[in-house]
């Protein structure tokens, strides 16, 4: 057992490879949150008046709301006046090409394994690089533009595509949707915007890479993706943060909209700093992600691999409004040490013949707590709605916990809902069997876990699948002695 602890210690000590900081000169908003802060951010972004008003409306809604307490996670009350809401690179110059990017920032992304260099990027992936409150650069914009695809930072979209933004921003996640969404609506600083025009199949993966760098700041990004009729896009999101002793808040909002016959595939590999082995530090990841299948025969598919953050609290959801629309949620959530995760999905069936599928794989190790929370709602209008849910929990060791909270609200008799849940352990017998074939504990656990998560991993684009598999092995290394 002592050996076991030692292995865990060693692994956890070096395991977060992304914990460094970047030295760039930054400017910050004054600490704390007030109407002034909101005005400051809006002004920094050169936003039009309507956007400022939209933010202020969110701010006043937020003031009247209370922090939610129903989730199965525990943390000291957040002091919203001790957070900095805006941090961006000071030296402002117009970035026209990749060469204009600050060398320090370039070096950061090199170190993270996603160099800002179009030719050297993962084949055929366009990336929007966001550090703290600002988008650094978006690659492949020109070649995408030829197809009419808009891929840029949300700040730029607010200035250049006001009609699209006005029409869709907040249409899926309204300002007052929940406490953190309201906060985000008031102070969001950057994020990505995607518009795929009618009938266009986006020729490459689009991706945003979020990096928290500054101290004491919160990260509030906003992503809006619109797939017009008959279009298709696959979008990936990745993220990391430095190792710091204090907790940092990340409260993002993602809205997806599909019109008739359109499809969005949204994949996340979430690897925010999880805190140290004593549970000190780490990111509070409180995120609202929701997609609306507005058009008939449209489809939204969420795939998430959640390995990071001290606390994760998110429920990527689908509102299935269009007839025959399809919502999917594939999730792997891993918690180790003192991490806590309360994650799942909501599938809201409104249109006829709508279908949804939920596959959730929770893996808990160390002293962590991992909860699945899912809601399947079938409205009166949703004739022949169908949902299938599969929620599996895997425990490693006996100090962690797994919990499942499925909620069903069925208001239409023709609806069909199938729910299956399992809890299992990586038992001594299974490990011994693998050992007996020559595999070390690490190799065995990694193989067992990857087998367990296969159904979710195969949803990811190839390069990310390999990445996710590696990440999973790293975050669980040493959890079995």
């Amino acid at each position: 057992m002592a050996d076991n602890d030692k292995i865990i210690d060693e692994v956890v000590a070096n395991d977060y490879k992304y914990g460094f900081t970047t030295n760039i000169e930054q400017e910050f908003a004054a600490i704390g949150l007030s109407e002034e802060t909101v005005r400051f951010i809006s002004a920094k972004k050169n936003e039009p008046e309507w956007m400022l008003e939209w933010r202020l409306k969110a701010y006043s809604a937020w003031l009247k709301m209370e922090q939610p307490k129903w989730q199965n996670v525990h943390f000291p009350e957040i002091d919203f006046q001790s957070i900095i809401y805006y941090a961006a690179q000071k030296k402002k110059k117009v970035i026209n090409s990749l060469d204009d990017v600050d060398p320090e920032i370039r070096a950061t992304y090199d170190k993270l394994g996603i160099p800002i260099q179009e030719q050297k990027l993962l084949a055929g992936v366009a990336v929007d690089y966001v550090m703290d409150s600002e988008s650094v650069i978006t690659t492949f914009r020109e070649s995408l533009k030829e197809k009419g695809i808009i891929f840029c930072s949300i700040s730029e979209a607010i200035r250049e595509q006001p009609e699209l933004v006005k029409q869709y921003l907040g249409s899926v996640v309204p300002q007052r949707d929940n406490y953190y969404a309201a906060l985000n609506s008031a102070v969001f600083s950057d994020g990505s915007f995607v518009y795929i025009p009618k009938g266009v199949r986006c020729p490459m993966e689009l991706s945003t890479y979020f990096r928290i760098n500054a101290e004491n700041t919160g990260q509030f990004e906003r992503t809006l993706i619109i797939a017009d009729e008959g279009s298709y896009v696959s979008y990936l999101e990745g993220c990391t943060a430095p190792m710091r002793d204090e907790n940092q808040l990340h409260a993002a909002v993602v809205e997806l909209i599909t019109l008739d016959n359109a499809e969005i595939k949204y994949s996340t590999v979430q690897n925010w700093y999880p805190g140290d082995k004593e549970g000190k530090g780490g990111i509070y990841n409180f995120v609202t992600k929701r997609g609306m299948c507005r058009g008939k025969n449209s489809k939204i598919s969420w795939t998430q691999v959640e390995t990071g953050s001290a606390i994760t609290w998110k429920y990527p959801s689908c509102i299935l409004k269009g007839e025959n629309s399809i919502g999917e949620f594939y999730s792997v959530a891993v918690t180790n040490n003192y991490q806590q995760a309360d994650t799942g999905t909501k599938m809201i069936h409104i249109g006829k013949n709508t279908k949804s599928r939920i596959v959730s794989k929770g893996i808990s190790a160390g002293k962590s707590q991992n909860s699945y929370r899912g809601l399947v709602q079938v409205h009166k209008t949703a004739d022949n709605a169908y949902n299938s849910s599969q929620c599996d929990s895997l425990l490693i060791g006996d100090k962690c916990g797994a919990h499942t909270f499925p909620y069903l609200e069925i208001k239409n008799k023709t609806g069909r809902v199938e729910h299956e849940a399992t809890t299992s352990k990586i038992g001594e017998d299974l490990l011994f069997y693998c050992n007996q074939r020559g595999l070390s504990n690490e190799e065995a656990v990694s193989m067992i876990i990857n087998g367990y998560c296969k159904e979710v991993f195969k949803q990811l684009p190839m390069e990310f699948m390999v990445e996710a598999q590696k990440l999973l092995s790293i975050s669980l290394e040493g959890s079995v002695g």
Partner: protein
Amino acid sequence: MLSIKNLNVSIQGKQILRDFNLEIKAGEIHAIMGPNGTGKSTLASTLAGKEEYEVTSGEVIFNAKNLFDMSADERAREGIFLAFQYPVEIPGVSTTNFMKAAVNAKRKHQGLEPMDAKDFLKLMREKMALVEMNKEFSSRSVNEGFSGGEKKRNEIFQMAMLEPALCLLDETDSGLDIDALRIVANGVNKLRDANRSFLVITHYQRLLNYIVPDYVHVMYGGKIVKSGGKELALKLEEQGYDWIKEENSELV
């Protein structure tokens, strides 16, 4: 190849193996028989390195190395293979991937490069044919949904893949139908050679008609109480264990 001297093993404070002694030379086949609960599986699991089994005293030398200096996975890479009495299921991991990992772990240990994908698949086909296993099993998850007999066959297939020096077979025959018994025994016989040794645990003399042992040992109360040639198995089949129990009443 294997030398067990005065081995004492307990589980949860209860002593199971008592001053157990056994010598196995390269190329030999030893059969172990004995009533339920006398410690046959305990012996096999202890040799393979299962942690719950506490070695309180004694020594085991395997190919000039102290067995207890090695972890279970090292022992496997050094050439010890246990065909389990109750093989476990590994959901989501195909037999192909499992075997690839196992074969390459062993190769790495021997200082060899991982096996080329084509060669590996060829080897898979060859060894599956040895135990007449349908190739659809290679893409199925290890043992998941396999029938009892199929699991046992899969153990022998894995054994053939890994080409171990010492094969421990724990009741590989139980649960096999008559044809499968013959197939599995044939598989084992084909793996017999001058450098490979077998320890075959069984309750039935029938298996030993197919896999003919050099020695038969009877285990009772945690130790070997009688050894002989293959005719000893016949005698046990005829007379049961009563006479053994009477002769060794002081052990229980």
